């Protein structure tokens, strides 16, 4: 690797560069920062606040369970606490914390200056925070969700749950939106924004893992978002997705929930494992043994995790062969996890380990996670699970996996990267004490639960009979919980104390090997003045001569460009120099847009048309202002000149971030509509009659919608091919862009009208039968997809009307064509589900 500051831009150029990347000051620091370190820090801090609140709820539950037949908490309060504890830890702590860590670390590890869509990244954070606030507002209004973090129907349906469930669903929906957005960010930064020379075989394990995790989030979180919407529709407008009397099925919720829920476990564990894959080598002073095996294990684990959801449903009466498919998958994944464990042990064995605090937490992870993995293999077996299901054995198992697999690695990572985040070393003595308290406390809490579960104690009960003989075990668990909590509080105190009293750490106190340790501690706003060039898998340990082509790109970006934020965009496989990606600056609009969404949720909860209407105006105003600011900035300064005279600022296709964003949005839409279609197929095969009345059967309207969408694709694609790959096109090309954007807008608007017209023309009643409900949902999904396509097309129109950079509208039209293609697929799937699937009769 070659490092910074070898050549010298002038002092004036450096100052201009620093000014361009300067963080906002004064009140703007609160609402406007978009840089990845600010956003990542906010994610992590917010997540830890929620973690301690969730932990407090757990302690209250342990106090209630310390002795048999206690009444410290009422049954209702207990139900509310275990619901909010699970919801908080899964949705508001674990995943957001890891996304925050990724937002902070990935650009640094990969040699980039920011995330690809910095403003969208901020928008996601605000959605997450506001989602959490909505969830916790339930305590303020005295309507706390109590149906469990899994919200099984019919307990969470209109018959048995009050508005508390709506609060849960809206809060969650915002948090899920944030997670999906963060996933798109992670995919783009990992695939296209790596430092020159960082080919796939040189990519840090953390980056490999977050790439896989991001794909899992898109494939697994979208079904939960769809499921949440179906449940909300059942609850509030009388659809029939989960009502057996009208062709629905409560088991559909379990499928949708666990299609999300099981990968979610690996969304938490895999980044934890990745942290260990960084901490163990650095603190063992040895490269990670078996890097290709570990990458393969991460990929296998990620993919297989998508196919394990039924092992949460072994006792729902599914046929034995169905169970056996998922038992096979569950057994297979344990082998992949085992490969990583072997790699860490081999690295420890081959190196010279130091018993630092990060290493202690890593060893704690290894011990705990292996134990949790073994019980995981036990419950993956359908016959054993039938015995242990819904007992405290399962509670013990998943806490071993989640705390062992995620929390201990996170704490290892925090102690490892704290010097990078803050420039200060945390106290090793206090860190060691906090580790032992947390480790001993954890095992004292959760090991006895294996026994209480096997001895017959069911989970989710607010008390138990003294005759069950599990009083002592529960008392031990409660004592352990307080020791564990003391360890975690001490950990927090140690880290926070280091902010003031910790020794200065320098750039690389551990002698680590990855690029983040090149940057200052804490890193400067642009991360790297000169973009590093990577020549090996451990860039700070490998000192090989680099390619002149890579050095040229590094030199071109040396404290440059100075008037616009930009970072190199490189090729997917080899990270060869490609183009320059513009990075957004501070702005208020993402906050306003997220606030508008939260306001819409509040309007729906309050059933206030005024609030809802105002929120729509706020959302539209925020997005319009956001887009106008984007175009204004992209048309200014050095955006029209190639960086270093060589690297274009944006180019068509995968050479600019927008194309990746459009592909990501299209994939999300297709996953969403496929989820709805599969839900309908599931209901169809379980229903004696499908549909109950007539099918939609409007071939002309449907075909017209498809044709209008095809026209939108053709027009936008045609426009995207006009003009040269530079910033000044001839008037004919400019005219072509305008014609293409206007034609696409009209075609999209026509498609919207035809799609929406299907509902009244079909004469269906969404409250009559789940088929009718499904048609409404599919028409709604298609309309939403078309609206997104229209939004992007209008952006290209704005770009054409406002820009002197002629390549920008061309790129925007191409992105619109990509998104319209996704919309066409949505239309095809929707049509198949409404009109073709009902023809399949046995």
């Amino acid at each position: 690797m070659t490092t910074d500051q070898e050549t010298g831009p002038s002092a004036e150029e450096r100052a201009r560069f620093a000014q361009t990347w300067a963080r906002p000051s004064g009140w703007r620091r609160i609402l406007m920062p978009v840089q990845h370190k600010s956003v990542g820090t906010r994610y992590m801090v917010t997540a830890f606040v929620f973690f301690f609140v969730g932990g407090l709820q757990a302690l209250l539950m342990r106090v209630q369970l310390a002795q048999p037949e206690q009444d410290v908490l009422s049954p209702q309060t207990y139900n509310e606490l275990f619901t909010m504890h699970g919801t908080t830890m899964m949705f508001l702590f674990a995943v957001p914390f890891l996304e925050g860590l990724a937002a902070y670390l990935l650009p640094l590890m990969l040699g980039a200056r920011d995330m690809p869509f910095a403003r969208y990244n901020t928008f996601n954070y605000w959605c997450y925070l506001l989602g959490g606030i909505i969830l916790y507002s339930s305590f303020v209004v005295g309507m706390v969700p109590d149906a469990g973090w899994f919200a099984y129907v019919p307990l969470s349906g209109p018959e048995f749950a009050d508005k508390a469930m709506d609060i849960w669903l809206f809060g969650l929906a915002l948090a899920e939106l944030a997670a999906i957005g963060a996933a798109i960010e992670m995919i783009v930064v990992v695939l296209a924004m790596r430092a020159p020379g960082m080919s796939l075989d040189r990519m840090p394990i953390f980056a490999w893992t977050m790439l896989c995790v991001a794909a899992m989030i898109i494939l697994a979180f979208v079904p939960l978002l769809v499921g949440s919407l179906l449940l909300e529709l059942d609850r509030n407008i009388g659809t029939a997705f989960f009502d057996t009397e009208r062709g629905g099925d409560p088991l559909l919720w379990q499928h949708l929930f666990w299609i999300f829920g099981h990968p979610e476990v690996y969304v938490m564990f895999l980044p934890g494992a990745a942290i260990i894959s960084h901490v163990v080598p650095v603190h063992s002073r040895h490269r990670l043994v078996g890097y290709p095996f570990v990458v393969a294990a991460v990929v296998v684990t990620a993919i297989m995790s998508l196919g394990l959801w039924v092992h949460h449903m072994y006792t729902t009466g599914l046929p034995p062969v169905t169970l056996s498919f998922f038992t096979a998958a569950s057994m297979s994944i344990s082998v992949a996890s085992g490969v990583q464990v072997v790699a860490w042990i081999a690295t420890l064995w081959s190196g010279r380990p130091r018993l630092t605090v990060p290493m202690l937490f890593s060893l704690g992870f290894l011990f705990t996670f292996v134990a949790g993995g073994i019980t995981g293999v036990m419950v993956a077996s359908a016959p054993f699970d039938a015995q242990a299901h819904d007992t405290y054995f399962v509670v013990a198992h998943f806490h071993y996996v989640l705390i062992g697999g995620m929390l201990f690695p996170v704490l290892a990572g925090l102690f490892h990267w704290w010097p990078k985040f803050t420039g200060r070393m945390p106290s090793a003595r206090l860190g060691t004490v906090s580790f032992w308290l947390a480790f001993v406390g954890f095992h004292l809490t959760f090991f006895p639960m294996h026994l209480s579960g096997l001895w017959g104690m069911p989970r989710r009960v607010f008390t138990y009979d003294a005759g069950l003989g599990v009083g002592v075990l529960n008392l031990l668990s409660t004592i352990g919980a307080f020791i564990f909590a003391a360890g975690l509080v001490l950990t927090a105190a140690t880290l926070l104390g280091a902010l003031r009293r910790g020794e200065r750490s320098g750039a690389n106190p551990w002698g680590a090997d990855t690029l983040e340790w090149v940057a200052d501690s804490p890193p400067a706003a642009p991360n790297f003045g000169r973009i590093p060039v990577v020549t090996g898998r451990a860039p700070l340990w490998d000192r090989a001569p680099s390619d002149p082509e890579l050095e040229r790109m590094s030199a071109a970006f040396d404290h440059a460009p100075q008037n616009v934020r930009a970072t190199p965009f490189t090729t997917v496989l080899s990270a060869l120099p490609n183009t320059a990606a513009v990075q957004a600056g501070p702005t208020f609009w993402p906050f306003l847009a997220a606030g508008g969404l939260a306001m819409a949720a509040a309007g729906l909860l309050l059933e206030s048309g005024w609030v809802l209407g105002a929120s729509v105006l706020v959302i539209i105003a925020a997005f319009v202002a956001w887009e106008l600011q984007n175009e204004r900035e992209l048309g200014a300064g050095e955006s029209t000149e190639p960086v270093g005279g060589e690297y274009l600022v944006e180019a068509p296709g995968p050479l600019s971030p927008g194309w990746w964003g459009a592909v990501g949005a299209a994939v999300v839409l297709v996953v969403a509509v496929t989820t709805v279609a599969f839900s309908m197929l599931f209901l169809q095969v379980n229903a004696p009659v499908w549909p109950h009345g007539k099918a939609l059967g409007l071939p002309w309207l449907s075909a017209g919608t498809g044709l209008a969408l095809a026209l939108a694709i053709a027009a936008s694609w045609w426009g995207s091919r006009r003009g040269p790959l530079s910033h000044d096109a001839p008037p004919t090309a400019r005219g072509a862009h305008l014609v293409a954007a206007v034609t696409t807008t009209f075609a999209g608007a026509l498609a919207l009208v035809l799609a929406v017209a299907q509902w009244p023309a079909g004469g269906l009643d969404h409250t009559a039968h789940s088929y009718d409900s499904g048609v409404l949902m599919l028409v709604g999904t298609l309309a939403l997809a078309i609206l997104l396509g229209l939004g992007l097309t209008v952006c290209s129109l704005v770009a054409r009307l406002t820009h002197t950079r002629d390549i920008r509208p061309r790129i925007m039209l191409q992105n619109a064509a990509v998104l319209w293609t996704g919309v066409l697929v949505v239309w095809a799937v929707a049509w198949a589900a409404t009109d073709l699937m009902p023809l399949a009769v046995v």
Partner: protein
Amino acid sequence: MAAPEATRPRSTHLAVAAVLVPPVAWVCALGLSYVVQDFACTAYASAGRNPPTTVIGTVVVTLDVVLLVLTLAAGVVAWRTGRHATAGDSSPLFGFLGRLGTFLSLGFAAGIVMIAVNPLVLEVCA
């Protein structure tokens, strides 16, 4: 501007395909096995008719065998890619992709076998 990913685009595509095919094949094997078996059996049960268990079982196993062959073929391509790289014919990146593809092929092939044997030993629509 953009530099070429590799001097031989076909080898690049093959190396990447050999990495991508095994995971996709495994997802298809599990998804199709589940959908064909579970949905077909349930649909017949909902309609009050006896399911053609032999046909369903045969379809599931045939699909799995085809996907297994595809996975192993991807493994062979990946292994050859890795071997060429080791011999110095291409960059270390291709060696890595070759090894990765080979491991993925073996792992997912084992996973497909574990799925495919079930209809052979258990009653398909019990």
